[in-house]
């Protein structure tokens, strides 16, 4: 036997022994000694992080409050503690763009940054090389995609039919329901599983990394395969993949699949609520209908009320536009619905780790180990390799599931917690940046790199500085990027910048900076940008539907500059394939982008193209998008459409008679947008559209729309009703026949019943308003400022409606709760009630509450008083004497927070009644405030100083100076310091006023201190 073999045998023997010794059942605990009880029970496990926990209330006064309006103080509205954020940022809202996006907007991440395209201008008459993507290639791909979609849809329909037939056959056996299929995009679902299922349902051919389980479509020699082979597809990450309806098709085919109703999707799904929603949504029988061509009316009914998707997606941009456009592409619904940002990160992370931990190949191992002294052994029979080590790393180890301790493999590429020192003064990299800038960490000698690599490195460095650097770094980097843009070349630049913009964890500020880079670079690159137009559009177009106004403006600016740089022909060539894209998201953003192009290059230039698109025979999507472009143009450029109004109307008018209802609807909306933009001029341009309406009679119109009165959507019903009313008003009701009348009345009766119900509901609600109040309080913590403002208003309305008594009782009770946030909100609410219902309705009860010997309650009362006096301003003069005794008491209280809050109440009071003759009370209060000047707690001293400042305003600087004089030359330095501080703020606030009040100083030797001028008189 080989000595190596012997040694191996020995080692294996030893190993077995060790394993036996370590086996879990060989370790037993002495249960008497370590009985189940935890001996640390009852101990405090945590040490409070800071000592001024009990000062928590004091925190609230930190920010200066200014009275901006008669609502809640701004600072408070901003400062209101809010829940929900679990990251270390505390109450700071997440800055990431993705966190505020809805599902629809998040679909931007599905888009692929397409490869460069052929620039026909640059190459002149030369035939493009076969590997360059020309316009024709792109168009072909788009057509294939569409065809694939159609085919899959047909297949799905057929399968469903088959299934139904089958189901009808074995109805009885169906009781044992088949196990529902798990959702496809679960990252923790093992690949094999998914593969097996996929091969069963057979639509994996749209997956770039598809497993050997070949579905039958694969055998079909569809030209779609070519599309798959293009680099654009292979670039996709598996989890990130564009959800093509193929996926839907197979979930459709499974009996209890995905379970998301098509209509119930994007609008309703807040990102934080999604996983549950989509998981629980019950599959309705309806969902099996082919839905991508579903009519908007049904869509509307699926999302009743104001929840129509479009309204939620594009607030402010197009309030009317594109209601029907929000039809989600089915595939996207199923896939994207449930993914939260956390999952995105997790997935990203997992992929990253998997990359680094991919199994070593035999060749790699061969090169790593010496050739001699080693022998390659057969793996044990029971050995199953873990193909995705990340899964192993991420999975929580179960106590019994992992019998042995596995020595973790050394992993050289691993980034540990300590961030690497950045070479060459580069700014700090966030973990997610490693993916893009990791190469900068390799400390290679730059000299050895090829010029291209050096260039790339330089670009990366500059970009990192722009993204993460300090403002000066950023500025220089930006300038360098701009100056050297042509030297770097469009390709390397955009290949670096654009992926950064697709980063899922991008923050607003970062995006802003990167977009700025693109903007600057565009100017320099000019026509060199042509091959990259589509790439840029993919990342910039989402900005056009961003909820942030400035993002939208930025997006428009970039696209407008881009179109000026690249020229109309290139823009059209780049965007034409997207016009009839199967994904509605793409069409929507493309339409918007086109409108920007139109405004940049002039409408006349675009008119022929628009005309062609709007009359496309090939697909309704193209017509739809074309007409939507017109709508967007109208919205974007407003009255500037006037010169082209007639041609625009003529281009789209035939859409009113389109066979597709969506096209008809968008045409109507576009016409409305045009009319709105042109108003009050240009009615004659609409003649061709409006004429047919003057011919028709009342019955015709009413008969057509009367059925719509039964529509589920309330706003729609109202609209229909108004229309009928107007029609009847204008043209008279005589033409309506009895059948129609009956129908109309029937509908109206039904509506009226509902109205009655609503009225009843109103009464009930009114009665419960008092009880609604505390719940409403929670809303003061809302993230959105608008909500908080609305809540404040609502408090006012409710209190006004039902009177302050009941409300106040609830609120005062609320002061006793332990939760601080709640108490703060309550105090605001009390002050609001006081403001709306006059202070005298609230003050007695409030002051009475101060008698409750409870810290929280008393502080709450004081805080309410503080807010109250802030709100009511000079109205306070009538109440100042009433509350003075209470404040006296509070300013003498042992509790610091009492004195602090009382001091801030005094401040607001003083500022409110300045010049209204309440000096006596104020001097009295100042006497109580003054001893607190030696406090050291920052919040308290701040409040006291502000109270004194308030007194300066109300009583005059001279009075406060007199308080000051006693301590300016006090023997104790500590005292002097405080007094000088007060003196200084007095001096800065009212220097001139002090001149008359300075004390008379005795002259000293040669020094004359007296001011004889002041004694002069005539």
């Amino acid at each position, binding site marked *: 036997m080989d000595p190596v073999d012997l040694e191996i045998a020995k080692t294996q023997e030893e190993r077995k022994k060790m394993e036996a010794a370590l086996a879990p059942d060989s370790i037993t605990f002495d249960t008497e000694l370590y009985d189940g009880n935890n001996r640390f029970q009852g101990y405090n496990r945590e040490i409070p992080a800071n000592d001024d926990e009990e000062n928590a209330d004091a925190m609230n006064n930190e920010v200066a409050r200014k009275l901006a309006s008669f609502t809640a103080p701004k600072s408070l509205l901003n400062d209101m503690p809010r829940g929900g954020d679990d990251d270390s940022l505390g109450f700071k809202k997440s800055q990431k763009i993705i966190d505020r996006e809805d599902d629809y907007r998040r679909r931007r991440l599905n888009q692929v940054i397409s490869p460069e395209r052929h620039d026909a201008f640059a190459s002149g008459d030369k035939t493009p090389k076969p590997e360059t993507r020309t316009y024709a290639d792109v168009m072909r791909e788009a057509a294939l995609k569409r065809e694939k979609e159609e085919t899959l849809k047909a297949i799905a329909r057929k399968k469903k039919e088959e299934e139904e037939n089958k189901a009808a056959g074995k109805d009885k056996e169906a009781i044992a329901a088949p196990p529902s299929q798990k959702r496809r995009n679960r990252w923790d679902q093992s690949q094999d599983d998914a593969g097996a299922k996929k091969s069963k349902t057979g639509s994996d051919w749209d997956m770039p990394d598809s497993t050997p389980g070949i579905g039958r479509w694969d055998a079909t020699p569809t030209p779609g395969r070519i599309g798959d082979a293009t680099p654009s597809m292979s670039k996709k990450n598996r989890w990130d993949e564009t959800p093509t309806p193929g996926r839907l098709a197979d979930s459709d085919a499974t009996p209890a699949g995905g379970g998301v109703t098509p209509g119930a999707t994007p609008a309703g799904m807040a990102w934080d609520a999604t996983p549950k929603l989509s998981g629980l949504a019950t599959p309705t029988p309806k969902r099996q209908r082919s839905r991508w061509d579903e009519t908007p009316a049904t869509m509307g009914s699926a999302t009743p009320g104001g929840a129509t998707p479009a309204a939620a997606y594009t607030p402010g941009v197009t309030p009317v536009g594109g209601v029907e456009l929000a039809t989600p592409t089915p595939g996207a619904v199923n896939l994207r619905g449930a993914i939260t940002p956390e999952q995105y990160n997790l997935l990203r992370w997992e992929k990253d780790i998997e990359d680094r931990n991919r199994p070593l190949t035999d060749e790699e191992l061969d090169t790593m180990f010496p050739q001699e002294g080693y022998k390659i052994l057969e793996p044990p029979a029971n050995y199953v390799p873990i193909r995705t080590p990340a899964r192993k790393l991420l999975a929580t180890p179960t106590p019994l599931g992992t019998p042995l301790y596995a020595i973790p493999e050394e992993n050289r590429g691993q980034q540990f917690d300590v961030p690497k020192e950045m070479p060459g003064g580069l700014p700090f990299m966030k973990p997610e940046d490693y993916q893009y800038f990791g190469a900068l960490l390799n400390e290679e000698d730059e000299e050895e790199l090829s010029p291209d690599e050096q260039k790339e490195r330089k670009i990366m460095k500059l970009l990192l500085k722009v993204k993460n650097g300090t403002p000066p770094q950023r500025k220089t980097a930006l300038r360098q990027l701009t100056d050297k843009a042509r030297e770097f070349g469009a390709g390397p630049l955009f290949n670096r910048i654009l992926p950064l913009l697709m980063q899922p964890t991008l923050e607003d500020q970062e995006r802003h900076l990167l977009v700025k880079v693109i903007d600057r670079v565009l100017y320099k690159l000019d026509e060199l940008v042509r091959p990259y137009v589509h790439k840029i559009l993919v990342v910039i177009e989402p900005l056009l539907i961003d909820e942030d106004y400035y993002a939208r403006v930025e997006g428009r600016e970039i696209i407008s500059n881009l179109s000026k740089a690249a020229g109309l022909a290139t823009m059209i060539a780049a965007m034409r394939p997207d016009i009839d894209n199967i994904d509605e998201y793409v069409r929507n953003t493309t339409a918007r982008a086109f409108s920007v192009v139109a405004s940049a290059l002039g409408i006349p230039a675009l008119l022929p193209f628009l005309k062609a698109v709007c009359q496309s025979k090939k697909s309704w999507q193209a017509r739809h998008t074309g007409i939507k472009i017109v709508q967007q143009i109208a919205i974007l450029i407003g009255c500037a459409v006037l010169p082209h109004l007639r041609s625009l109307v003529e281009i789209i008018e035939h859409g009113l008679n389109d066979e597709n209802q969506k096209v008809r609807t968008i045409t109507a909306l576009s016409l409305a947008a045009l009319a709105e933009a042109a108003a009050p001029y240009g009615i004659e341009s609409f003649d061709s559209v409006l004429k047919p309406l003057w011919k028709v009679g009342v019955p015709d119109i009413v008969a057509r729309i009367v059925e719509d009165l039964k529509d589920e959507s309330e706003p729609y019903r109202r609209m229909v009703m108004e229309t009928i009313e107007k029609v009847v008003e204008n043209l008279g009701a005589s033409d309506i026949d009895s059948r129609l009348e009956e129908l109309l009345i029937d509908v109206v009766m039904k509506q009226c019943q509902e109205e009655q119900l609503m009225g009843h509901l109103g009464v009930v609600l009114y009665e419960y308003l008092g009880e609604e109040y505390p719940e409403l309080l929670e809303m003061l913590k809302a993230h959105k400022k608008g909500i908080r403002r609305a809540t404040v208003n609502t408090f006012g309305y409710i209190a006004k409606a039902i009177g302050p008594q009941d409300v106040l009782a609830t609120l005062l009770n609320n002061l006793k709760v332990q939760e601080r946030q709640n108490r703060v909100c309550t105090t605001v609410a009390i002050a609001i009630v006081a403001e709306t219902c006059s202070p005298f309705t609230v003050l007695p009860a409030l002051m009475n509450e101060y008698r409750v010997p409870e810290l929280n309650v008393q502080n709450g009362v004081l805080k309410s008083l503080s807010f109250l006096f802030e709100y009511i301003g000079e109205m306070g003069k009538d109440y100042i004497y009433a509350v003075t005794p209470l404040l006296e008491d509070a300013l003498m209280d042992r509790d610091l927070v009492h004195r602090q809050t009382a001091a801030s109440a005094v401040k607001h009071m003083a500022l409110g009644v300045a010049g209204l003759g309440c000096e006596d009370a104020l001097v009295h209060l100042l006497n109580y405030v003054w001893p607190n000047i030696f406090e050291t707690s*920052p919040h308290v*001293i*701040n409040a006291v*100083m502000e109270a004194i400042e308030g007194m300066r305003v109300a009583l005059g600087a001279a009075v406060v100076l007199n308080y000051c004089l006693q301590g*300016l*030359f006090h023997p104790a*330095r500590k005292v*002097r*310091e405080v007094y*000088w*501080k007060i*003196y*200084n*703020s007095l*001096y*800065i606030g009212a*220097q*001139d006023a*002090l*001149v008359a009040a*300075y004390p008379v*100083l005795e002259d*000293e*030797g*040669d*020094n*004359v*201190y007296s*001011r004889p*001028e*002041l004694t*002069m*008189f*005539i």
Partner: protein
Amino acid sequence: MQASDRFNINSQLEHLQAKYVGTGHADMSRFEWAVNIQRDSYASYVGHYPMLAYFAIAENESIGRERYNFMQKMLLPCGLPPEREDD
């Protein structure tokens, strides 16, 4: 002062105040304060025209002269500074 207090608004306040001419501090002498008072007073007289007019009538001088005098007095309003005791 605690480390945490060093950067809060209250500690900055003194620094902020010190930027203004005429503010004081705990180590200020009677003379320094008096100089500030005098200068403030003269500045105030010069700044309020009715005051200047009043003084001009009382002293039987022109308003311009009064203004000039006050400005001159601002230079060393209290005479030379006294010898510091600790020097």
